[in-house]
């Protein structure tokens, strides 16, 4: 194969951790667009593209990919520092499904031809990917999905509907879990398919969420022709492949950053509302703060597993429960002390740091997406505690 030339010629793994941290920190601070620090909402492609392209030019877009595919090939320990620094500076998530989900999957399961065809276009920003997994009748029970791909000789014909597709309107490619065998056990009849969003028969309909934001969409497939070479991995093995990549999501969703951010906002709000010294508030606040610090302690243990290069077990589900439920409790306290200000759609007194209503709404879906709290408890019960 023709190697993909990385723009970053230095092997950053060779830097000592602290030097590496300072190195990327100063670059992030110098290059991150100030106007999109700590965004309240998930940004669209037109908003985050300048940052995406800066990372791409620097060669730092895909820290986790191996160097021969244009990534930085960072060790797990360095990748964690990378993420910490992005979070520290309040950097927005880009349209990163190609970077964090599809790229690693193609690298692991794709053919050489697929790697050459798709990876450079993620690195250049030419292909913006979205993820087509959930369906109207297959949410928590994802394996029951029914969007089907029927073999029509040299291509598949796809029919069905996906939902909760993040930033689908921005994307020109979508990766899909599709049913390719209706007779098999539900997990064993699913394949992984790459689809050009400009193919005739695809319709994207945005969904407006409680933030009044069109982050999600429905995506409809009506007799969409997909070339056979767009199948990744073996036919009917899509479920296992997709599942193998979920541990990233589970630790990412357990990161303390949302709760830490919300607690800072709560403190600022309490000062403005004049309740910071109120003993009832102080006791509640102390609980939130200790909960946050304990979450950080627990999180650091999973990070240590990653740093040691070991896989995360099902156990990591508990991080997401703790994080998302704490985030919600903090925003509930904010709403309570805000009084009528909590009913405002926008920030109070024109101060974007004082936005209790929006913060409360923002915290609502965290116990739903990425596997609901109830599903996470099922995972712990079944896979960790071995109950039924």
């Amino acid at each position, binding site marked *: 194969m023709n190697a993909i030339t990385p723009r970053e010629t230095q092997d950053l793994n060779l830097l000592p951790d602290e030097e590496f941290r300072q190195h990327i920190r100063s670059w992030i601070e110098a290059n991150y667009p100030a106007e999109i620090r*700590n965004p309240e909402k998930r940004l669209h492609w037109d908003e985050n593209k300048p940052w995406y392209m800066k990372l791409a030019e620097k060669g730092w877009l895909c820290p986790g990919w191996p160097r021969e595919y244009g990534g930085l090939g960072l060790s797990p320990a360095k990748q964690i520092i990378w993420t910490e620094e992005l979070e*520290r500076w*309040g950097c927005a998530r880009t349209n990163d499904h190609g970077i964090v989900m599809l790229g690693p999957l193609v690298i692991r399961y794709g053919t050489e031809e697929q790697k050459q065809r798709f990876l450079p276009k993620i690195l250049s920003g030419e292909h913006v990917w979205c993820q087509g997994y959930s369906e109207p009748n297959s949410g928590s029970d994802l394996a029951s999905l029914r969007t089907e791909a029927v073999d029509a000789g040299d291509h598949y014909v796809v029919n069905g509907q996906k939902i909760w597709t993040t930033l689908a309107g921005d994307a020109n490619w979508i990766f899909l879990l599709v049913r390719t065998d209706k007779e098999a056990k539900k997990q064993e009849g699913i394949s992984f398919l790459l689809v050009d969003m400009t193919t005739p028969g695809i319709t994207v309909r945005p969904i407006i969420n409680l933030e009044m934001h069109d982050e999600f969409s429905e995506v409809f497939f009506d007799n969409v022709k997909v070339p056979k070479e767009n199948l990744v991995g073996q036919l009917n093995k899509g479920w296992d492949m997709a599942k193998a990549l979920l541990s990233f999501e589970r630790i990412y969703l357990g990161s303390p950053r949302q709760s*830490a*951010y919300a607690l*800072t*906002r709560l*403190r600022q709000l309490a000062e403005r509302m004049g309740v910071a010294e109120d003993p009832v508030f*102080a*006791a509640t*606040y*102390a*609980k939130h*703060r*200790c909960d946050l*610090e*304990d*979450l950080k*302690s*627990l999180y*650091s*243990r*999973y990070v*240590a*597993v990653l740093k*040691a290069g*070991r896989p995360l*077990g099902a*156990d990591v589900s*508990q991080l997401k*429960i*703790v994080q998302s439920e704490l985030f919600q409790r903090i925003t509930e306290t904010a709403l309570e002390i805000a009084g009528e200000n909590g009913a405002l759609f926008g920030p109070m007194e024109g101060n974007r740091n004082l936005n209790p209503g929006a913060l409360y709404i923002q915290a609502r879906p965290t116990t739903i997406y990425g596997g609901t709290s*109830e599903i*996470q*408890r*099922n995972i*712990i*019960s*079944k896979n*960790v*505690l*071995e*109950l*039924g």
Partner: protein
Amino acid sequence: MSADPTGLAPFSEDRAESIGMIRDSAQGLLGSDMKRVRALRFTEPGFDPALLRAMGEAGWIGLMVEEAKGGTGLGHAEMVALAEEMGRACAPEPLTALQLSAALLAAAGHELLEQALSGEAIVLTAWQDRAGTLEPAAGDGARRFVPMAAGATHFLFVSGGDLHLLPAADVALETEQRQDGGHFGTVRPKNGLPAPIATGMGEAIATALDRAALGTAAELLGGMEASFAMTLDYLRTRKQFGTVIGKFQALQHKAADARVQLSLARAAVEEAAFELDEGAGGPAIVARAKARASDAAMAVQQASLQLHGGIGYTDEYDQGLHLRRAMVLVPSFGGAALHRARFMALEPETEDA
């Protein structure tokens, strides 16, 4: 049983071996027979002095006392591992209290240390004059809530920053039974206080109390593990409505929540020990660990009782031993609210956004 049940990396790989040895030694000495624990309840002194001497021989009482002074010279990581095993076994021997006294005798450079380390002398520290405090009392009035005081040979009487050593014969002792079948003593010097064995010990006392708070947090952790293990066994075997009750989602989710609390408590306690051993931690991280362990213990013990149903409410069933021990350990060396308030006072907040 000695492995970290979360399956996560220990904080410090190079300590894993000595921590493992401590756990093995503890399990060997303490066993898992609850008959022993039951037999000692509501008796005086309420613990086994011979076992205490064995603990002394094993180096447990002086676990953190430096080797030059006759101690074992180990760190906080080993201390919390041992305390966790004490909690798991529901042992009534007041090891944390004896370690506290050993630390103070060592700091004072007093000759009784040797006998205290061997378990020959049973020295208990009488430092508080009221409930719900970590503040050493001043004056020569009554000292309260001294654990298992009826078995003491000596009392180390704290008055402000001064330490006074009193043979048991020189104090008037009243005891009150505790929920777990042990007792608290109220200690009054019969003839006033003798000359102090050391003065200006305020810092040493504060450090020792902090360490005892962390040990108590670890003991709570062990009790949680024991109760939760019993609960999981029960959920996997007890049948109702034609199936094992562990199949019911309402019960599964309660168990999952208990597990989350356990994991948080373990993370907080072990991180505190690790940070202290690294020289990076102080009272704030201990306060957070004791707060979490206290709240988590009450939540896990209550959930365990509820998940057992009626059998959990019988004295015959061992889970109740852990629940009632938790009722003793939760307020000891400061409960959750006290430690959260301390944490907030000790740890300034950083602006992260």
